[in-house]
């Protein structure tokens, strides 16, 4: 079985700024980590893989995203591909999905694609389902249990109101939530091995994309305005160590709860 995983490098702080002109994130100068759910996806692949299976990790981003792939190799992936090109920059989820799907086409369609449910920076959760659509394969999202069965996989999907168990034949794409497993830790020997491994690079040209077919210009959605809203409320404050204030505060809470017909 051929398994493919996407690793996105995301900023490791909440301090990201937006470029108000282009409406895209400024990533320069911010440290990067692998999107945590993508590591859950990789760990799921490691747990499900059998002898003879291959696990390929793919990332799209600046050259620096190589660090994320190196981490994935240290965790046991066998092959790493980095899609890096200025022409990919600023792409929305559709433009991103197009590039990632074309890489899968180029390396030979995998049997199973495991993706994190969403990334901590963009938070759209759209790229996985969009890739499934471009490949025309079944999709299961929010997977919290993944098992191999003779002709495919069996999954539990944790939805809002219950747990859905499905059997899906291959090829298919699933997205995972953090409950599926514990985040893996790289071993020293894994890290050493990873440094000797090659990371393949692909570009817009090598994937056969023409000018304006990728990135910001090819994105159907355009950010037209950025606002920084104030989300503050002016709280009535009560200091509990003063018993009169505590009393007043508790009265106020009870009043709010009865106004909302809760008590």
């Amino acid at each position, binding site marked *: 079985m051929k398994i493919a995983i996407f690793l996105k490098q995301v900023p490791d702080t909440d301090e990201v700024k937006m470029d108000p002109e282009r409406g895209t994130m400024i990533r320069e100068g911010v440290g990067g980590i692998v999107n945590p759910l993508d590591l859950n996806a990789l760990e799921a692949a490691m747990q499900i893989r059998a002898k003879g299976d291959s696990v390929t990790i793919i990332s799209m981003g600046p050259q620096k995203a190589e660090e994320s792939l190196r981490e994935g190799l240290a965790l046991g992936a066998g092959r790493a591909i980095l899609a890096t090109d200025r022409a990919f920059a600023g792409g929305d989820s559709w433009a991103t999905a197009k590039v990632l799907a074309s890489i899968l086409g180029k390396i030979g369609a995998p049997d199973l694609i495991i993706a994190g449910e969403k990334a901590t920076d963009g938070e759209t959760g*759209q790229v996985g389902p969009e890739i499934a659509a471009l490949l025309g394969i*079944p999709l299961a999202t929010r997977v919290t249990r993944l098992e191999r069965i003779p002709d495919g996989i069996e999954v539990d999907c944790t939805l809002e109101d219950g747990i*859905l168990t499905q059997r899906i034949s291959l090829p298919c794409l699933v997205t995972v939530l953090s409950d599926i497993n514990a985040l893996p830790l790289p071993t020293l020997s894994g890290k050493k091995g990873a440094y000797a491994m090659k990371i393949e690079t692909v570009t817009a040209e090598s994937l056969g994309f023409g000018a304006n077919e990728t990135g910001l210009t090819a994105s*159907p959605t355009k950010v037209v305005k950025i606002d920084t809203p104030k989300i503050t409320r002016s709280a009535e404050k009560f200091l509990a160590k003063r018993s009169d204030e505590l009393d007043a505060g*508790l009265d106020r*809470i009870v009043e709010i709860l009865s106004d909302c017909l*809760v008590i």
Partner: protein
Amino acid sequence: MTRSDRPEAGEFSNEVWVLGEDRPCGEISSVTFELSAKARELSDALSSNTGERHRVTALLLIDSNKTNKSNRSKPQDAGYYGADRVLAAKAENLPFDRAACARILAHLAQESRPKIIIASATAFGRSVMPYAAALLGTGLTADCTGLSIEPGTNLLLQTRPAIGGNIMATIKTPNHMPQMATARPGTFSIPAPNPEKTAEVLYPDLPDGLFSAGVSTIKFDKFTRDERTLQDRNVIVSGGRGLRRAEGFELISALASLLDAGVGASRPVVEMKWIGYPHQVGLSGQVVSPKVYIAAGISGTVQHIAGMQTAGKIISINRDPEAQIFNVSDVAICGDLYEIIPKLIERIKAKRGRK
């Protein structure tokens, strides 16, 4: 199948679509009504701006093996909230075969050519909408908190929080149709139903090729009342690191059960395994909008606040007078939650006793 070239405006019909939802019991989910009302507003704006009548269609994907046992809501009810027409597509394995749902949506949208399709950002909407958007070769904006029509261009303005809710981005899909967006459940208000207004219900024929081979649903285990999603709760009581120990959740649960409230938690305590992931409130957990949100021992990181800031009333209890959570609260009590919450419980019981 993809269309990257700019369509002529005339190619698209005067339709605004809602991808509705039905629950496993067969009842129509309230998000359908919420979005039907929003679509009505968008459709009316387009009608008045263009002088051409626009109409609202709600699409429902219904499992043909199930009968609506609840009888509490039926497809035509979408009319009471603003839909002119309901397309009820029935087939096996809907709505759980997400790829099939998306193909049906894309197929019907290619036939009717709506200008706009909106859906709820639920597990269902977040799977089906991106799949369908990619099939239609168009853009999609996730988790919008505002949707309106831009005067002049008549394009859909899609506003969504970005970067942990610190900024709001307004997004347009200027050169592609349909313009697609999802909104978190509860983002828009549901108006009182207008029983005078009914929708025409149509059952479209679906070609065979739309269904995924090889997806079979084994079972759906519905959560019990206690496992209900936080998003369905009127009140949520959440605990954070200020509880200082896992057992602190017993106190949180005691208050919650008194209020028939859900129990929420901040990310650090979920990571420490004091409580399970389904309880996590915040961007990496659940985004909630209850009538009352009580945060006990939660400092209020950006990622937590972005998950609860739209609550009706926010009450916070924290020992740290500088806690960020106080800045987004309506009532803030500075002190030890182990002293305050038992007193609050007493007070609520006393009030009930007097009734």
